[in-house]
């Protein structure tokens, strides 16, 4: 069985896992669910002994460095992976323990074909008598894929190869880190069946944010939050009768993401150019943009009244970020107009951008007060305003915090500081480009709250670019889709664009 006792893992001083303990018996599958950045992948790697670093001595405190260090124990069967030698670990990996990871583009050796990967796996473990092609056939990898290099494979195909490789040696312990995220529903079924098949002989750990997958595979569920196991128990207890508030929130969020509900939609239907424009607001008038002769946006028109929010949904590569940069003046407008309509007058729009990665939006050598002072200086505002702005976004105003460098801020703090900086320029309109996608759940709701507040109280127009349906739902007065460079504001219920 797999047994983890009081596992603590640090990267430098930063704790990744704190006091994690659990047991997985033979025939059991433990699903670990939680948000991205909660330490799930580190947990999987720790169990395989794949973390480079050192063990902390008793009572030793971790020091700032760029290395991992840990304390506690993790047993795979008879072997304590956190105290074993390199040779023992190497003998265990791929033999008694298998690891399946999410199929990112870099998951396989770019210089080996699919067939070579499988042959290599068989040879490395003395299974040369077995036929690599047969192994592939079992995992639903057709012959035509065998001579391909990973760059020519889709995410789903890579995932199948990873699964075949991990299961080739019928491991006793199977550790899965988002094993189906890249699969279509057909291959997902095949994969789930292969994980169920023989699971009574294995100890399995499943790391996922896919509650549905956890429900189908897991006998037990643990909830990991900021490196701590907040709740663990039989899956029906945790998933259906969660005790902690965090688990309840998490389940609700996932459920919402899974089943889209109808959103407020445009009243004017599919032709935004005909929309009635009255009162104050931001006008986009037939914006077109192309990069290197490739058309990215074509004839985008919309009107966002002051004090309201237009949410623009779209997948990656749909031109969201380009449109956001056009609106905020970071990119030169090639064709069309952006302006602020004041009654019947046209004014130059004052728009501030709230970007996806707040750390990239501020100079890393600036302190918190530098950021605000610069914005106030450039917009000829009152320097004394700084503390009020920090207050408004819920950040502390003590000297210690004011002197912190922006690179030392957490994602949530940095995003709030960027909002404060945006407010310092007294804009008529805020453009937010995926403002919450890099944040954890708590920071996310906080940022959405702030955005809602400024929009309503200060009568600002807000353009929210996102793929987060829940965020769009909570803020938007109107929702449009950006698809293949055109803006579609349909009456039909919004389909699931979140992937």
């Amino acid at each position, binding site marked *: 069985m797999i047994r983890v006792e009081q596992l603590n893992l640090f990267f430098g001083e930063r704790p990744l896992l704190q006091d994690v303990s659990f047991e997985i018996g033979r025939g059991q599958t433990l699903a670990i669910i939680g948000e991205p950045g909660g330490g799930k992948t580190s947990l999987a790697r720790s169990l395989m002994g794949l973390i480079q670093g050192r063990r902390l001595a008793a009572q030793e405190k971790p020091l700032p460095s760029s290395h991992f260090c840990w304390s506690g124990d993790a047993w795979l069967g008879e072997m304590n992976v956190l105290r074993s030698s390199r040779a023992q670990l190497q003998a265990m990996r791929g033999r008694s323990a298998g690891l399946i990871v999410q199929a990112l583009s870099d998951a396989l050796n770019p210089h080996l074909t699919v067939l070579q990967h499988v042959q290599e796996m068989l040879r490395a473990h003395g299974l040369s008598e077995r036929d690599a092609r047969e192994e592939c056939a079992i995992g639903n990898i057709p012959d035509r894929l065998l001579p391909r290099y990973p760059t020519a494979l889709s995410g789903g195909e890579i995932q199948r190869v990873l699964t075949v490789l991990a299961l080739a040696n019928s491991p006793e312990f199977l550790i899965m880190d988002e094993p189906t995220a890249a699969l279509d529903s057909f291959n997902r079924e095949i994969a789930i069946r292969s994980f169920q098949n023989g699971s009574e002989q294995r100890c399995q750990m499943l790391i996922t944010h896919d509650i549905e997958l956890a429900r189908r595979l897991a006998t037990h569920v643990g909830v990991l939050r900021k490196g701590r196991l907040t709740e663990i128990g039989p899956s029906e207890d945790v998933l259906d009768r969660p005790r902690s508030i965090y688990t309840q929130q998490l389940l609700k969020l996932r459920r919402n993401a899974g089943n889209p509900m109808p959103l407020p939609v445009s009243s004017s239907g599919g032709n935004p150019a005909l929309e009635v424009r009255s009162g104050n607001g931001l006008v986009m008038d037939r914006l077109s943009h192309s990069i290197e002769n490739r058309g990215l946006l074509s004839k985008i028109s919309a009107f966002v009244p002051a004090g309201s929010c237009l949410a623009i949904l779209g997948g990656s590569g749909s031109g969201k970020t380009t449109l956001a940069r056009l609106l*905020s*003046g*970071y990119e030169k407008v090639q064709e069309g107009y952006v302006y602020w309509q004041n009654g019947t007058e046209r004014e130059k729009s004052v728009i501030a*951008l709230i*970007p996806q990665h707040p750390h*990239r*939006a*501020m*100079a*890393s*050598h*600036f*302190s918190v007060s*530098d950021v605000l*002072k*610069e*914005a106030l*200086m*450039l*917009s000829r505002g009152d320097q004394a305003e700084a503390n009020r702005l920090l207050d408004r976004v819920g950040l502390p105003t003590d000297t210690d915090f004011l002197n912190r460098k922006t690179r030392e801020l957490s994602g949530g703090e940095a995003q709030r500081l960027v909002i404060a*900086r945006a407010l310092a*320029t007294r804009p008529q309109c805020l453009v937010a480009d995926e403002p919450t996608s890099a944040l954890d759940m708590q920071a996310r709701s906080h940022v959405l709250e702030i955005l809602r507040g400024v929009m309503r109280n200060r009568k600002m127009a807000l353009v929210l670019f996102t793929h987060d349906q829940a965020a769009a739902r909570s803020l938007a007065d109107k929702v449009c889709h950006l698809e293949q460079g055109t803006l579609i504001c349909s009456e039909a219920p919004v389909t699931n664009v979140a992937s």
Partner: protein
Amino acid sequence: MLGYWSPVTQSAGFVSKGALAASVILMMAGFTLSESLPAYKTSPDVLHPPSAEYWLGTNGIGQDVFIGLVRAAPITIFLALVTATVALALALAASSLAAFGGPAVRGAVLRVVDVLQVIPSILLLLLLAAWIQPGFLGLVVLLALTGWHEDVRVALPILLRELTRENVHFARRMGASRTYCLRHHILPAIWPAIVGLFLQNVRQAALKSAGFGFLGLTDPRLLTWGSMMQDAMEHLYTDAWAWLLLPPAGALSLFLIGILIIGEGYSQSGGLTGKEQYDPG
């Protein structure tokens, strides 16, 4: 107008300014010290082994090796520092030209760098050095002119990356001038990389100038550790090599190691990453 900014730029530049001040002081001390020493003159005591009178022995024309070593130190180091500074200035000028000058200018600069990269500069240098026997200034000009292009390959991508960052976009959009952005956003951000490049240049310049001295291609009046090593070449088959070769070679190696260690410390504190260091050797 921007008085409140000084702490930021100061802390970023503190280490490098300190190091610069220290080397200038060291060099001045070196020059004064070597002035106060007896002259580096010939004497009848030819190839005298180390003794109380001649701490590190004498060379083939009776010059005291220790005095030579001390007198050559500030010249050798100063030569490397000046060369590195000139090369870096050239590289930064070319990089800025490429970064601000639009696609056509950038293409032209990159082309020139490409061409310089394939030119076997050492051979040209040899040809030139054989002809003009460069002194201090000549060496600086020759080494800087053939060494700056490698820095452009490192500096230009970093400069472009910083130029397109959103904080610069924000400041420009809010009406900040280019000079303002350069001073407050870009320069502090690329400063560690510049210092890293400078240290690499110092190493390169020290190695190359020592090579020319060793081959006897520099002005015979220019006393450097490299030219002192040339004295040893004729005496490899006698015992004299030990005191003729080892002191200048050791001093040069120590200097190079010192620069490398400072550079390591710098790259760990956010300067160049291993990939950007084009040539640690």
